[in-house]
């Protein structure tokens, strides 16, 4: 049928409503073209009954995940791309903060932080009973932990001359070593032990001898200072809880 032969469609709103509702009635009573429209709408209506369950299992499972306790955004969208959800932000921030704490805590405990950072960190954590090495009293290349692991008697051996504390320790750093072993050697359980040479800085004081042990007085700040001066900074005793 040529377009120029087609009449204009004259369809009133009531007839349109009947077509939509599927109550077109007798096609003979419909305007031209309306019967064809009725077929199209019937086919569209049939489309709403055609079942396609190919995705039912995955979709229903995703719906169940959403409705499950604790479910939600993470379980959704099997078809669409997953998107960033703001609920994940606090967890990411907490994990990042924990990681940074561990990292800088480890560096601070090892005394590996720069001096400008090590001192404030040591000050901060000293309020909660944790003592960290300080670059001002121990050289950056030294290992204050070595002295920190020795017994408390070590501190008493480094008291400056004139201290009235009863002690068997000598008053100079050189007397820390056993008399039988020339410096820098010291007496071990099987004889003298000579530490390996360290290029920079040279070892000036070997680890203290546990036998020099009798002190009854807790260390004082002056103890630390004098220790630093006398021993060249190698036996500073911050790790025993004494305050700077």
């Amino acid at each position: 049928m040529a377009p120029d032969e087609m009449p204009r469609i004259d369809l009133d709103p009531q007839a349109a409503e009947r077509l939509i509702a599927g109550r077109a009635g007798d096609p003979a009573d419909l305007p031209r073209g309306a019967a064809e429209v009725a077929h199209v709408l019937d086919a569209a209506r049939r489309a709403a009954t055609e079942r396609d369950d190919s995705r039912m299992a995955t979709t229903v499972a995703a719906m169940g995940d959403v409705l499950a306790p604790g479910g939600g955004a993470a379980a959704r969208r099997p078809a669409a791309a997953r998107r960033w959800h703001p609920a994940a932000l606090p967890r990411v921030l907490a994990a990042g903060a924990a990681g940074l704490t561990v990292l800088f805590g480890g560096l601070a405990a090892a005394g590996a932080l720069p001096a400008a950072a090590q001192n404030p960190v040591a000050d901060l954590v000293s309020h909660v009973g944790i003592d960290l090495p300080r670059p001002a009293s121990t050289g950056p290349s030294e290992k204050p932990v070595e002295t920190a692991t020795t017994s408390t008697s070590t501190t008493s051996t480094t008291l400056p001359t004139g201290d009235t504390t009863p002690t068997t320790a000598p008053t100079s750093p050189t007397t820390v070593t056993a008399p039988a072993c020339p410096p820098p050697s010291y007496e071990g359980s099987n004889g003298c032990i000579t530490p390996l040479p360290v290029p920079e800085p040279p070892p000036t004081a070997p680890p203290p001898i546990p036998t020099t042990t009798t002190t009854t007085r807790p260390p004082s700040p002056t103890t630390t200072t004098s220790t630093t001066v006398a021993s060249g900074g190698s036996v500073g005793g911050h790790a025993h809880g004494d305050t700077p």
Partner: protein
Amino acid sequence: MALGEQFTDVLSAARAGAPWALETLYREYHPSVLAFLRGRAPAEAEDLASDVFIAVAEGLTRFEGDEDGFRSWLFTITYRQVGQLRRRMGRRRTDPFPADEVGERVPPGDAESDAMAAISTQQALDLIATLPPAQGEVLLLRVVADLPVDEVARIVNKRPTAVRALQHRAIVGLARRAARDEPPKDESPKEEKTESSP
């Protein structure tokens, strides 16, 4: 095509996450949702249908109403999914068929009525897709979703009189296409096109 008295029990069980209830809702409403989407976004219809049902699950505990209200709510979500898809894709709607292709999609026959009677569901949806977006959406919501004029008006954010006018123009447009009387582009006024997107 309705759950009837079972709806309340099904809804309660679905809110609790019961798989059988979710499956019942899916089986009941998925065909009409998919048909609507096939008429609006054929290439993405299946993906969007899955998204619609997951969005339903997300809002299920907040939904209050009867079965008719549920159907209306479901197609509100569906309608908005199409709108979101359009915004994501940066275009208003799926590409309409060229005017000269419309006739080729209708099965040929000696009598037009015979051809139209034999039209498949997909061909019918394709034909509706040639309508201007606002007309096509209103017609699909009325016919495929089986919603009354007032509900369609609420979903598309128009007055009921505007919805009746759109559906009337849609029917006339389909009749003209069926009769191959006119090209599909001059059907709707300009202002209608600007407000057609959800």
